[in-house]
Every structure is written in structure tokens, then in C-alpha cells.
């Protein structure tokens, strides 16, 4: 039994090591001196760890600008998504209004349509609104998050009607009920949703690539992709760029993983 226990654990450790090896290597190479990574056999650790690549990245390449853009867009996307999604999710779960169930069924059906299908017309629509090449244009898709409405609705269904009814009898308005009674109950799912939107908008690539033409507005992934396509041979700098791009979300996930995983399961059950 002990043998079995250890062999399974050893196998899991091996698989886990192979899985995170690319990430460890990314960090390791980012501390190498320039040119050190272009060798055979590939070095696993930097001979003399240096911050040179990060200095170059933030100095010459101006990555600070892209970092600020990414932080701004992801933060705004998260705030806006919460603002739009939470009241709607609550309304679909708990407030009876005409056509509610029919609209909800249509939203379920709309989930089959991938967002990319409407990308070209959306680009033209935003061009007509003068939002191409602006933060606002990059934020627009996050307002239309059907998944968030599902998530919030699902969670709201478990709130007992008697609780809301009692507040109504006490004379609370519907807005007060949402703010004072429902929102505190929703805290865990709000964290989940915020985390989900923040990570998704941070990692998003195709839409910002299309809508942000001005280099000054590039997010980290768009800037990194642009550099990598120019066939940069400086692996150390590219790895440092990858670290700056992905480490913030990786840390955020590790800190709040419980919330992320519970949301993932709630979302996949709905499909």
C-alpha cells in the first residue's frame, strides 16, 4: 500500500514537473545574460543571473506603457462587467417581469455563437461610433458577457424568496434590496466573476489586436506578439517579456484559486 501510494504520487509529481517546466524555464532564461540562451545544449539556469533584460524591457522597449494599458483595460473591463452583469443576473433569477423566461432561453441559445462570428461587423459598428483605436473599443465586448449573467443568476436562485419578501414588506425599494441584502450574499460569486473577467481580458488577444492600431494603446499580449513576429533572436528579452505579461495573472490566480475553480465548475455545468 505504501509503495502504491508513493508510486502514484511520484507519477503525479513527474507530470506536474513536466507541466510547469516551460514556465520555470521562461523565468530562468529571463535572468540570463544576452546571448546565453542561444547555445547547445540549452542552459537550464543562468550562469550569472542578471536583471539586464528587464532594464532593457522597461527602458528601451517601453514595456511600462503596455503594462499600464493592460492594467487599465482589465480593471475597467472587470468593473463594467460587474456593473452590467450583477443586476441582470439577479433580475433573471428573482424578479418576475414579462418575457423574462423567453429572453433567458434566447441567451442560452446565443451561447452557441462564438464571439468571433460578429467581429468584422462589430469593428465597422465601432468605427461608425468613433471607438476604433481607443480603450472604449477594447472594453466593449466585456459589457456583453452572457456567461456572467448565468453565473450570477445561478447563484441568486439559492436566495430564499421569503428574505426578499420580508424586506419588501419592511418598505425597502428593489434597488435597496439589491444593494443591502443581495450584494453581501453574492460576495463569493462576485470575486469569482471579477477574477474571471480580469484574467480573460488580460489574456485576450484577437480583439485588442484588431481594435487597437496605435502602438501607444497596445496591451501586453499585443505588444509581445508584435515583437515576436519581427523574428527577434533575443530569447532572453522575449522570455522577460513573457514573464511580465503572464506573471501578474498567474499570481492573481494562485492567490484566489478557490474562487476561480468554483466558478469554472458552475460555468461548465451550464455549458
Amino acid at each position: 500500500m505504501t509503495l502504491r501510494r508513493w508510486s502514484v504520487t511520484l507519477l503525479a509529481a513527474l507530470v506536474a514537473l513536466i507541466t510547469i517546466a516551460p514556465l520555470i524555464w521562461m523565468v530562468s532564461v529571463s535572468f540570463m545574460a544576452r546571448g546565453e540562451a542561444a547555445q547547445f545544449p540549452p542552459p537550464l539556469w543562468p550562469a550569472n543571473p542578471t536583471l539586464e533584460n528587464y532594464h532593457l524591457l522597461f527602458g528601451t522597449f517601453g514595456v511600462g506603457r503596455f503594462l499600464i494599458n493592460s492594467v487599465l483595460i482589465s480593471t475597467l473591463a472587470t468593473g463594467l462587467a460587474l456593473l452590467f452583469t450583477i443586476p441582470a443576473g439577479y433580475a433573471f433569477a428573482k424578479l418576475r417581469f414579462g418575457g423574462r423566461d423567453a429572453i433567458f432561453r434566447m441567451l442560452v441559445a446565443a451561447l452557441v455563437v462564438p464571439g468571433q462570428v460578429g467581429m468584422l461587423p462589430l469593428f465597422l459598428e465601432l468605427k461608425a461610433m468613433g471607438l476604433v483605436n481607443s480603450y472604449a473599443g477594447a472594453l466593449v465586448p466585456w459589457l456583453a458577457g452572457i456567461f456572467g449573467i448565468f453565473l450570477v443568476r445561478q447563484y441568486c436562485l439559492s436566495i430564499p424568496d421569503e428574505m426578499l419578501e420580508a424586506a419588501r414588506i419592511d418598505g425597502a425599494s428593489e434597488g435597496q434590496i439589491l444593494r443591502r441584502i443581495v450584494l453581501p450574499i453574492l460576495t463569493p460569486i462576485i470575486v469569482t466573476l471579477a477574477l474571471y473577467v480580469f484574467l480573460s481580458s488580460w489574456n485576450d488577444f484577437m480583439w485588442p489586436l484588431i481594435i487597437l492600431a496605435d502602438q501607444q494603446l497596445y496591451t501586453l499580449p499585443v505588444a509581445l506578439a508584435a515583437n515576436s513576429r519581427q523574428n527577434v533572436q533575443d530569447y532572453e528579452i522575449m522570455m522577460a517579456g513573457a514573464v511580465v505579461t503572464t506573471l501578474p495573472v498567474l499570481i492573481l490566480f494562485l492567490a484566489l484559486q478557490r474562487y476561480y475553480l468554483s466558478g469554472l465548475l458552475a460555468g461548465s455545468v451550464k455549458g
Partner: protein
Amino acid sequence: MNAASRTSEARAGRAMAAPALAAILLFFVLPAIASLFLGFTDFDIYALADIGNLRFVGLANYERLIENPLFWKAMTNTLLFVAVGTPFIVAMSLFAAMLVNSRWLKWRPVWRVALFAPYVTTLVATAVVWRYLLHTRYGLLNYMLSFFGIPPVDWLGSPTASLPAILLFVGWKTFGYNMIIFLAALQTVPRELDEAARIDGANRFTRLRHVTLPAIGPTLLLVSVLTVAGMFQLFAEPYVMTQGGPAQSTVTILYFMYEEGFKWWNLGSGAAVAFLLFLCILAVTLVQLRLAKRSGAL
């Protein structure tokens, strides 16, 4: 409850749902429908400058696509990704889930997080890392393979190796997500069932086939549908790692649509591609649901 509070409840409900519904209508539903119509026009760079140049061309975009070899290349590449990638990724995810679900496993949460981590990383960043990892001369993968006497593979430079190379990356990036879904399903399979089969002398594969898989049937279907949909939406991977090459072996439908729309500004033709992409995803999803109904998994 009286009529007045009913009305105020309905009014509040509409007010709270309205902003989100308006955004969904304006930025999701409308563009998706417009895509169908845009596909029947010759919207190009001239129409972009002056809408007066826009003409209705019927099915001309679709006819031209059918005659375009690159479109067919993108189609076959994508179908290849779906056909090869889906079983590969589903099997990999299920293996990881069964490993993490093993009752003999110590420190389960640690392994679960490590295996899930690639999924939350930034796709573009890890694609850059993998491009280096797959480098013919300096890459870690070829170095590892050299210990087994395997000569260096030109992963991203040869038309036959580029698809497996990208699949390897996509599998690494996404299997953690599927694993979590599988794990939740596996935890509902009673251990006694597996135990009884083991006592009856069933080996590991028989138990997998006759006990575990039937028990998680609906989840298997869900994961397959999600994976197929994901395979149809590959874009950043070829964009960053291969730029569609070599010899156009990694041009996917979405990559083709992007170039058609935003490189050549043939938005009419690009919209036609988008609509075909939608039909493909819809068809595959419906077929899989039908199969599941027939086999009684749902």
C-alpha cells in the same frame, strides 16, 4: 402579494436587466446577424473609405471562397486540428484527472494547481515560450529527445511537424481546464463500483471502459464539445508561433478570416468565412448532442 408591488417588481426587473441586454443586443447579437448580411456584400477598403462603393453581390463571396485554395487549406487544417487534437486533448485531460483523483495520491491540491496553471497563463506569452522550447537548435524539447537518440526535429519549420507541435502546445495550455471538469465528474463515481470490478478480476482498461467511462458519459461529451469548439477557434497560436506557415500548414479558419478581413480589408469575404465557421461549430455541436442522445448519455 398585491398588484402594486408586482408592478414595481417587474419595473425593477426590467431596469436591472436592460443595460446588460442592450449591450448584448448592440455588441453581440447585432454584429452576429450583420455578419450574415456583410457576407453578401463586397465590403472592402473602398467601401471602408466611402460606403457608397458598397454593393450587394449575392453569393459571390462564397463562390470565390470555394475557388480559393488557401480557404480549403485553412478548412482542412482546422478539421485536422479537430480530428487529431480533440481525442488527444480529451485523453490527456482524462488521464490527468484520473491521476489526480487517485485515492493513493498525497498532496492532491498541489498537483491539481500545478496541472491547472498553464490554463490561466497568457496565451501569447506562453506561445512565445513554446516557440523557443520547440526551437530546432536551442530548444529544450529537442535536447530532451536527443537523450533517446532522436535527431533534432524542425518542429515549427516543417509542414508535417508544425501541426503536432502546435497541438502539443494547445494540449499543454488547455488540459488543466478539462481536468477540473473531469475531476468533478469522477468524484461522483462511487469507489465501490470500481472496487467491485477489481475484485471480479477486471484489469485497469476494462474498468476504465466499463465502469468509469459510462459513469462520466455526459461530462465526456461536454468536454469533447468544448474542445472541438476550441479547436475551431485557434488563432493566436499560429499567429505567434508560425504566422500560418510553413507552407500554410497552420493557417486556421480564424487566421484566414483575420487576414481576409484585417490584412486585406476584404470584410465582405471575411464575414462569409465567419458565417461558415459558425455553421461548422453548430453542426459539430448538434451531431455530438445527437450521438449522446442516441447512446443515452444525456
